[in-house]
């Protein structure tokens, strides 16, 4: 069965997994009840409790904190006092269908005094969660090269003028006798850049997994 309203996200879904680029929140009010979807990156399952605590501190005294969470093979869900399979289950199912990983999606509910009934309640949780998934910023994991180099200031100036965000980032700059910094980004582009910087001394060359934000 295809969950109602998931079409929009299917356009985004591709073969690879998506990861939250940054935390995201959105809110919906149904029959006086506030539903607030909070999506937080979750890099390891051990952080789940502390992430939930963060949400509870941010939204204290809510009636329920149902959630779904995924970190690779680890999956968790909770209805947190709502009727069985009304909230945690649809949220986790959405995370699976939309192929998003390493996140906690919690829908905080402040009860407004009117009961919604099981079908509408389940639908509302799914809709709010989906809204968050559709609107959040996503990233993909990519193989990056990180090259630590040292270069005289004049060459550093040349580099900062020519280097663009598209090529990657410059991290951990130390202004010593020479300037020491790390270029992070696409391996080929970095190699091309280094050719234009004969003064640079390469101190370390490593590959690592990084995240690249996806355009909407």
């Amino acid at each position: 069965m295809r969950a109602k309203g998931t079409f929009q996200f299917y356009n985004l879904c591709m073969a690879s997994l998506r990861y939250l680029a940054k935390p995201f929140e959105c809110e919906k009010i149904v029959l006086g009840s506030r539903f607030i979807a909070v999506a937080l990156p979750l890099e390891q399952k051990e952080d789940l409790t502390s992430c939930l605590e963060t949400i509870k501190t941010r939204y204290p005294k809510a009636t329920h904190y149902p959630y779904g969470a995924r970190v690779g093979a680890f999956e968790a869900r909770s209805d947190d006092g709502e009727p069985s399979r009304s909230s945690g289950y649809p949220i986790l199912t959405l995370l699976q269908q939309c192929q998003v990983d390493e996140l906690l999606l919690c829908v905080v509910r402040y009860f407004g005094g009117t009961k919604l009934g099981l079908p509408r309640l389940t639908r509302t949780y799914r809709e709010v969660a989906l809204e968050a998934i559709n609107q959040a910023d996503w990233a993909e994991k990519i193989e990056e090269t990180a090259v630590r180099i040292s270069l005289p200031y004049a060459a550093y100036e040349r580099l900062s003028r020519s280097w663009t965000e598209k090529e990657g980032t410059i991290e951990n700059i130390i202004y010593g006798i020479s300037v020491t910094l790390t270029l992070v980004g696409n391996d080929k582009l970095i190699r091309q850049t280094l050719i234009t910087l004969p003064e640079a001394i390469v101190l370390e060359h490593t590959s690592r997994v990084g995240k690249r934000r996806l355009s909407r």
Partner: protein
Amino acid sequence: MINATEYEERRGRLLAMMDSNSVMVLFSGVEKISSADETYPFEVNRNFYYLTGIDQPDSALILVNSYGEMKDFLFISPYDERKEKWYGKRLTPEEASKISGIQNVQVIDSLSAKMDEILNPSMYIFGEIRKLYLDLDREIKIGEETTTLDEKKIAEATYHDVVVSDAYPLITTLRLRKSTREIAELRSAIEFTKVGLYSVWSNARIGVHEYELADLFAKVVNDLNGYQGLAFSTIMASGVHAATLHYPKPLGSLADGDLLLCDLGARSHYYCADVSRTIPVNGKFSELQRTVYEIVLNCNKLIATKAKPGVTIASLQEAAIDYLANACLAKGFIENKEDITRYYFHGVSHFIGLDTHDPYLSPIRGDYRDIKLEPGMVISDEPGLYMAEHQLGVRIEDDLLITNDGCEVLTKNIVKEVEDIENALSSKMR
């Protein structure tokens, strides 16, 4: 307090020791990670501090000898609103200039640009400069993972004509001889130490823990010096604990019949006092304790008579070993003179200044024990005897200022005679 004029004088004297057409770069250091994202309290690199008076991380000094003429530049971290909210105020360029006497103060990010202007043959703004002095102490960090040793390698690879030399021996040569103002700082540090030590004595009762006394010393000193802290971790060791030279965890409690060894020091603008005294916990030395104590005390006095210009610390050490060995032989503690190493196994003196061991010279940089003493140098005088089988350790340590014809015991007001200690413990103090 050391003023800007004195910092200028120091830089001037250093410049005269540098090769003509050379440059020196010194870093204040950065905060070091202790564990996870916690850092140790920041301790400024003393060579940088000695020449600038600036006590904050992420700062650097460039000193250029351009055909004998001095150009100095100070680099400090820029104003950063967020950092200031988190970590408090940093010096403004005006304040840094006033403290150091350096007119040209820039933000640290422009250090590399200035160095490129100085060392790059296509610029050479101060003439042809091919010698670069760096303080090659492996503990100086410029970034989390970068030390000055890394900077040396990078500089040599970047500027092929440049030869890198160690600045450390030049600066420590200057630091050995103290100025009038430096001696005044040392006297203040010793005065704080004396008050702290006497507070310890008046609370050194049976049953009290060693750490309580160490904490008390720190508290009294911080009250007096405005939270400038201690010269080194206090050694507060009672009974057999005193036989461990740098007794690390003072968890023991004072027992009737124990001796208590206190090796401690306050500091004043980083100038360190280093004092040791040993007292009987119950107020009276036993016969054995008194015998051992008097051997050490007489050795301590002997060294003070021998410390004068021209003498080396190595020869003072020989004199101390000789005296202690003969005295222990006479009292029957040992059977051969060589056996004194069982009871006495450290040096009798070290230099004192901005560091407790100042300068610290590692074997590759030369041995401080062979430096001939000169007026203005300050050394410790600290013989000791450590007899674990008798449950005791005795050390008596004074700080000596070498004068034209001998030395002045800077710590002379802190009592050490047996009668004086027993009187102090019996009456007014407790």
